[in-house]
């Protein structure tokens, strides 16, 4: 399984550590809250709002360099809009990997 990384952020920053820290801070602040909200919506079977959250999270997935994970998120968002959730566990594995990564970053 691919691992989250900072390659995209570093490429964009051109060595600007302020920008790198800012990006990490945004992910650290927003991702746990977005995951919490996504799970709540899922529990209530509110698929539209859950899909909107996946849409938001998927950008963070791509920023952390998870190319395959990004495709999973695209497909899962589409699934949720059709009230299906076959990719749930695969998607949530990606979320767990991201949470571990940002805790150590």
């Amino acid at each position, binding site marked *: 399984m691919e691992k989250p990384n900072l390659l995209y952020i570093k490429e*964009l920053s051109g060595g600007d550590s302020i920008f790198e820290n800012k990006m990490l801070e945004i992910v650290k602040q927003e991702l746990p809250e977005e995951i919490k909200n996504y799970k709540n919506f899922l529990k209530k079977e509110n698929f539209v709002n859950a899909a*909107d959250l996946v849409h938001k999270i998927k*950008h963070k997935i791509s*920023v952390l360099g998870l190319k395959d994970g990004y495709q999973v998120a695209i497909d899962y968002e589409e699934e949720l809009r059709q009230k299906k959730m076959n990719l749930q566990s695969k998607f949530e594995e990606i979320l767990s990997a991201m949470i571990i990564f940002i805790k150590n970053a």
Partner: protein
Amino acid sequence: MNCIIIDDESMARAIIEQMCFNNKNVNLIESFSNAMEAIKYLNQNEIDLIFLDIHMPGFTGFDLLQTIKNPPKVILSTSDSSMAIEAFEYSCIVDYLLKPVTQQRFDKAVQKAVSFTKKEKQTTPTQVKDEGESITELYVNIDRRLVKINFETINIVEARGDYILIRTEDKNYTVHSTLKKIFDKLPNDLFLKVHRSYIINTKKIIDIEDNSVLIDSNVVPVSRSNRPELMRRLNLL
């Protein structure tokens, strides 16, 4: 090109802001997290380019384009490739960036916007600012009189809501206009926009300190994105 960013995601805004900072063709004026604030701003200010997210809660990027009159050039940014088809219906949209955006792709899109704007200016004679023109002055309407101001006497131009304040060597003039309009009339080699609310005559700089310049007795702020261009123009020892 003066630009704004409209995107509800703070991370997406931060990325485009960084890319603007890395690109010398764009001057980032403001970033907005929602379309309504941006519409209010666009109704009062002239902008050359918008980096616009499509997927925003409540009011989408396309809703915004349908709301504003004479939209400037627009570069869309989105994670949905399926939206591309709808984008072709808007003549103001010059390009379409799929997230995650790379700097190279961003630069290409900006270049497209620059080329589009140049082409339009060439076919709109009234908007042409001839690079080689010998005009040395500007006329402003004050109390129904057209007052002549020589370019070289202007120290600073400040945005003041719906007005601009032109500070010259011996007098100040308040004129109903925008900073963008006057900037288009001023010679590029002499004047520089250093902040969203300030244009300065670079020949009048007394000193520069961190993020400000001193002109006459006025301290003018210099925004981070405009500082490289200012430094480039200086004959540094």
